[in-house]
């Protein structure tokens, strides 16, 4: 434990902010993906699963190909593949979104865990080719204003929002409701894959079983906290990132006795946000509803 005298807030401010930023990255990417999906009316609670898929595929592909960009590509493809399964179930076959999302989480957890162990026996140690964290930060920094403007002021954005608010009106306006929802869901999968890749290819250099540890659900809460607005999602991601990152610094201040409580901080915050914001939020009117003519 660090002696108290050498711990000073002034010296810690910068590292703390960087840590918060690092923890915010995967949350932001996944939340932006989910935000786009939800604005199109698709409620996908399978973020966790898609992130895990991305994390595993990123680590494995980058190790196998020896190339970080190829690993990133693999992570995006894995996220999209899992999103495609979800889209097939809920949009095309009109299954219940909550059941399908839960299924996706459990399926991805089991699948990545099994594959990880199987590969671990063969290759002994899978080490990812890594990317610097700023790559992901850059993607997030570009996406926030782009999505904000795109949703507000472009025709595809207009169509996407119409599909999420009142699909029948969009349909009669000539918008292909299912196609828009499919695309939004795949976009969500791609971003969740990226978020997962950040965990296994940048934040650490290997995949670990269930390494997302509930971050998908936190991202889900961030969408609500951010009131379905990309800037709001950015704010939410930074707040939760700070909550998650601060435990490492506070741990040194308050000692190990209360450490488990600190670990619970982001999750407690999630509960608070869901309880406080969910009730009076401007959620898309057709969120989670299958559309049939």
């Amino acid at each position, binding site marked *: 434990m660090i002696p108290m005298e050498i711990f000073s807030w002034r010296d810690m401010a910068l590292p703390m902010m960087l840590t918060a930023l690092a923890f915010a990255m995967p949350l932001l990417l996944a939340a932006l993906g989910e935000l786009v999906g939800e604005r199109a009316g698709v409620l996908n609670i399978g973020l966790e699963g898609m992130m895990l898929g991305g994390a595993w595929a990123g680590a494995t592909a980058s190790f196998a190909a020896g190339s970080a960009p190829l690993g990133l590509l693999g992570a995006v493809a894995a996220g999209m593949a899992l999103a495609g399964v979800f889209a097939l179930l809920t949009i095309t076959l009109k299954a219940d979104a909550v059941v399908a999302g839960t299924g996706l989480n459990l399926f991805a957890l089991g699948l990545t865990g099994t594959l990880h162990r199987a590969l671990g026996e063969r290759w002994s140690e899978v080490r990812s080719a890594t990317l610097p964290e700023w790559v992901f930060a850059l993607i997030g920094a570009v996406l926030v204003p782009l999505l904000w403007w795109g949703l507000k002021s472009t025709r595809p954005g*207009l169509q996407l929002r119409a599909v999420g608010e009142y699909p029948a*009106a969009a349909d009669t306006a*000539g918008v292909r409701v299912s196609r828009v929802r499919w695309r939004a869901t795949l976009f969500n999968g791609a971003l969740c894959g990226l978020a997962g890749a950040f965990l296994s290819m940048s934040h650490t250099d290997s995949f670990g079983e269930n390494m997302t540890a509930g971050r998908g659900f936190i991202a889900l809460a961030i969408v609500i906290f951010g009131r379905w607005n990309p800037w709001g999602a950015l704010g939410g991601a930074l707040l939760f990132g700070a909550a998650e990152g601060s435990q490492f610094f506070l741990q040194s201040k308050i000692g190990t006795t209360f450490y488990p409580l600190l670990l619970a901080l982001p999750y407690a915050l999630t509960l608070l946000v869901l309880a406080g914001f969910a009730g009076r939020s401007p959620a898309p009117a057709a969120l989670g509803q299958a559309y049939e003519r």
Partner: protein
Amino acid sequence: MLELRGVTKRFGDFTALESVDFAIGAGEIVGLLGENGAGKSTLMNLVGGLHQPNGGEIRWDGEAVHLTSPRDATARRIGVVHQHFMLVPVFSVAENMALHAPQAVAVFHADEWAARVEAWARALGWRVDARRRVEELSVGERQRIEILKALFARTTSQKTKAESEAESEAESDDADETARLLLLDEPTANLTPGEADELFDVLRGLRARGCGIVFVSHKLREVMALCDRVVVLRRGRVVGEHPVSQTDAARLATLMVGREISAARPLRATSDHAAVPSPAEAVAALDDAHLTIRNLRCGVLRDFSLQVHGAEIVGLAGVDGNGQQELMEVLGGLRAPDAGTFEAGEAQTPGETANATRRAGEASGSAARTLSIIPADRQSVGLIHSFDLAENMALSRDLRAACRGRFAFDWTHARRTTRDLMERFDVRASATRERTPAANLSGGNAQKLVVARALQWSRGAVVAAEPTRGLDVSAARFVREQLRRAADEGRAVLLISTDLDEIFELSDRIGVLYEGRLLPDENLLPSGASRETIGAMMGGLVQGKGQK
């Protein structure tokens, strides 16, 4: 221009349209008349591209076409105004319009679109603020937006070669972008008579410009006033087609229903007791059955006072959104008013006076208990869809009380009672009878059940909101007769309806709800008041006497 030949449409086992022939040319207004379920909307949806026919063909400009999506319809400049608003409530008017923009337009410029939409509106003589959100607009304004949209909405499809050629021709002249055929599904359902007349003027103007218009309605008067030709549908078949000049409302009504209906016989009380002085006891007895509302303030409602006596039906006309919903919610006990009180009494059978008076007195504390409510929205408030009919009936406090067994709820009794009621009120369900889920009932049968439940057990005042909305002629007739019977039993009946014909048919006295106030004043209008007077009050053109 448009021609349907032998078109058949089936949904599962149900045949919605059977070898229907229909044609319309440019510069013609054709009325499509029929009861609910006659196939009017199905026909609209086939032409609008939402559904595809199972047989027959649709021809457009002499060529057989397959309209597989709304895009195909708009590409051929067919505009549709659906029965339900197809506007995104949280979008601005301009955003709603831009939704229809051609694919090539990638960026949405709010100002540009607002100017464009306002120019379109001006062309029809309307003023529209295109920056406002649709949810802030009145129902009449939304209807206008729908018509603007149908007229000016452009294709968004990736065009086939032939289409894009036709399109580029059209693009050369802005006026040619407008719809050539306009389909309107019950467009006057939410309009005041004045607004409807305005709409008719606009439609006549479009006809003069060569636009073909299909006008779907079950209001005979409107069809007679507007259309050149009428096509009558019954149970998915065309049962008659006449130029309006060679037919009359009575004949069309008979065609529509398939038998003579006495549409003209009013259901009003034979003598106007409110005006005729009665013996003191009789008045007292009637007043026990009253419904009195004093200075109610809630939402839009501003110091709303109204007294309905026993044995009379008071009709409350008005356009939706002027306080009807608040009034229903307060009377139904769903919402506490900001100020004001109301009380309701029960009609008595002779010899029971003292007892009943006391009960009425107790009831004034929670008048909702003695009120029988027939809610406007039977879909969401009236019935629980996944419950079967007996379960729905058991939602009534009175039936529950009757079924209180020693240990458990007496379902046998509840089911028997429901069966009896279904017979008496002519509720037709499938072979499973009282075990049928409410979701499987047709609109008319569902409403009969709601009415039966409201009227059967209590003797208190009745409040009915839009009791016949969306019902076909015979079901509506039945419901109205039940309301009249309730009044004949001495109960006070308050009828809240946006359907003026219904108000005139049933009411002994008539009031108008406008911006939360009662017009003309607490004395209301006699049943013989003119349609124009009431229409003017509904539109806010006439202020009542003694308004502050």
